[in-house]
């Protein structure tokens, strides 16, 4: 199972990115656990300076943007 982390404090963009990630996992048929990381110290420890960010299995894949469903599917 893949682990998708959504890094951000929980604003509208973070929520949209989470929705897109869920949809991408469903459409791609990939079993994923989705975790929201809202604690700023954890986000900074990952080197992320702009949110929302998305990580898959611990690798940060995008920073400061809301990836589309199709973009996330390609990453999966």
């Amino acid at each position, binding site marked *: 199972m893949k682990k998708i982390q959504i890094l*951000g*404090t929980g*604003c509208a*963009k*973070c929520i949209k990115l989470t929705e897109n990630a869920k949809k991408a996992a469903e459409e791609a048929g990939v079993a994923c656990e989705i975790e929201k990381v809202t604690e*700023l*110290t954890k*986000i*900074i420890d*990952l*080197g*992320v*300076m*702009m*949110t*929302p*960010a998305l*990580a898959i299995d611990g*690798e*940060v*894949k*995008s*920073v*400061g*943007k809301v990836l589309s469903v199709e973009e996330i599917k390609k990453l999966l």
Partner: protein
Amino acid sequence: MSEKEISLKTVNNACCGAEAKAVILGCSGGSNVGQIANNLMIELDKSGIGNAYCLAGVGAGLSGFVETAKSARTIVIDGCPVACAKKVFEKYGIAPTQYFVVTEMGIEKNHFFDALKEETAQALSYIREKIG
């Protein structure tokens, strides 16, 4: 300053629609100009121009650092024309938004650290004029 305040200062709130600050990276090398690059990064952070950032994290290929460097506006400061910081960026196909070299600010490279304060002030005056 509390941990939360420090975190809020550091992370750009692009999430909430605010324009993200630039991230600033200095080469921090083992010469006077390398250390001046580091000092410039700190001074520019203190004056609110951007946030000091970790070149070593980018150099080490840590994904969060590399992706932030790719997405953010970046101010990269090298000490000398060897351009290590710029080459770290090139390794990942990133071009700095703004790029400076301390030896181009009228400061000669050496391995003495006695005049760092004065040399940093000179370089800061130069870079502030360029950044605006």
